[in-house]
């Protein structure tokens, strides 16, 4: 029991102790992604923007969505979703694709998962100015609720890392995981009110989608950036609890299996 406790403590120590290394490795990921391209980091902004263009076209021109400032609504949910989905997709492959790190270095391999989450976060952060620009153009009012933003980001960071630990571990044993994860993410995306409004769903379905804690997470972003509301403190606290539990479980699971990693990757 005490051993479990001390390894839980370590789980929270790792991101702090190795923050410099995590930061540099995360920047490296982005640098490699954009090296040689003429636009460089600008792609971090351009990619979601082009995606948004497609969605906005489909929903306002074809489906005639009439919501006020719909592109802003869409963008607010889409960006953190991209952060989440990108991190999980990359985290799945993080261990199996880093043979050198796992086999030749004494650094904790948990770092590999965390680095993916952080590098995708940097990507997200880079697109925030565009979001603010949109908010300004469409005249959406934002204000005091924005102070909750860092809390939501931290919650998302821990949830994403926690899930990342699980999928990264499973991928080591079953290489099917990457495909399963990719498809699950698709389901998850459509199962959350990112493109649509929850009110458009039948009442029963509305209850169903909010069994998913991630739906609350996206909703929290929407409340501060779109509705200019404070997220309900109770739900936020619940979400934080879920994040911590998921992180701890993921970390312990990863820990229990990581000794085998050097032999398997």
């Amino acid at each position, binding site marked *: 029991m005490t051993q479990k406790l001390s390894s839980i403590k370590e789980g929270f120590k790792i991101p702090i102790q190795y923050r410099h290394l995590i930061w540099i490795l995360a920047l490296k990921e982005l640098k490699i992604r954009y090296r040689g391209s003429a636009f460089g980091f600008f792609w971090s902004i351009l990619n979601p923007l082009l995606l948004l263009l497609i969605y906005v076209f489909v929903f306002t021109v074809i489906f005639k969505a009439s919501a006020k400032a719909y592109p802003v609504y869409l963008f607010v949910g889409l960006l953190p979703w991209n952060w989440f989905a990108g991190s999980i997709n990359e985290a799945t492959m993080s261990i199996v694709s880093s043979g050198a790190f796992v086999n*030749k270095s004494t650094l904790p391999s948990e770092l590999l998962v965390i680095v993916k989450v952080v590098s995708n976060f940097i990507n997200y952060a880079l697109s925030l100015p565009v979001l603010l620009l949109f908010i300004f153009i469409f005249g959406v009012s934002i204000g005091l609720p924005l102070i909750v933003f860092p809390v939501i980001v931290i919650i998302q960071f821990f949830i994403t890392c926690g899930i990342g630990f699980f999928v990264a571990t499973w991928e080591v044993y079953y290489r099917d995981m990457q495909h399963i994860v990719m498809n699950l993410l698709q389901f998850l995306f459509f199962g959350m009110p990112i493109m649509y409004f929850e009110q458009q769903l039948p009442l029963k379905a509305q209850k169903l989608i909010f069994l998913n804690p991630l739906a609350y997470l996206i909703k929290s972003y929407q409340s501060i950036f779109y509705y200019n509301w404070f997220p309900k403190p109770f739900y936020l606290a619940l979400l934080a609890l879920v994040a911590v539990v998921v992180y701890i479980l993921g970390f312990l699971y990863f820990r229990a299996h990581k000794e085998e990693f050097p032999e398997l990757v």
Partner: protein
Amino acid sequence: MNIYAVEVLNLTKRFKVVEYNPTSLKTKFVSFIKSGFKRKKRPTITVLDDISFSIKKSTTFGIMGKNGAGKSTLLKLICGIITPTSGTIIRDGKIVPLLELGAGFHPELTAKENILINGLMLGLSKKEIESKYDEILDFAELSHVANEPLRTFSSGMYIRLAFSVAININPDIVILDEIMGVGDQSFQKKSSKKILEFQQKGKTLIIVSHDPALVERICDQAMLIDKGKIVEIGNPSSVAKAYAAMSS
């Protein structure tokens, strides 16, 4: 104060045979059903079998053995990258694993960026590395291409950079796995000088080599392993002779 840098006691390492490790859910599922819903116990191979030895501080220790004798596994265990099946390893001092040159190098990044990342991975702080940039680049004779991406380097330049990073880090226990004899003759001379410098500074060196002459020349003690067991340990020249006899 411990007189040993590394003490290995009754060390055994077994690996599960990887062939039996199912790589897809389907295979796993099918074999699970075929075997009558019983979990298959994977066969194991013993790579190191009940090995004990110790390495005194400030000495140079050579490890010899044929391919597959268990040398690299032993080094990984000493570094703490993998854990023993049974037995214990006691280490005293900071170990930097230099198991493979350039592990973690990325071809798209510049020489400088790679030095930083490699150094961080080997346990240095950012400040320490920044103060060593010039020294490392100078030693590798690559100062003029410090900001070029690694993919433009020749393999000789690549390996010189990797070796230079490895050698310019300041651990108490230095582990060198078959990385001597890198580069051209003048670079080799420089490398040997650096090793001599390590010895004079009182560092503990663990060297894996296939070169009997090298082991005889620089080691204080040596060990020959074969099939996971110690064949001979002690005087480097007799170990080198035993290795030569075994190989012929």
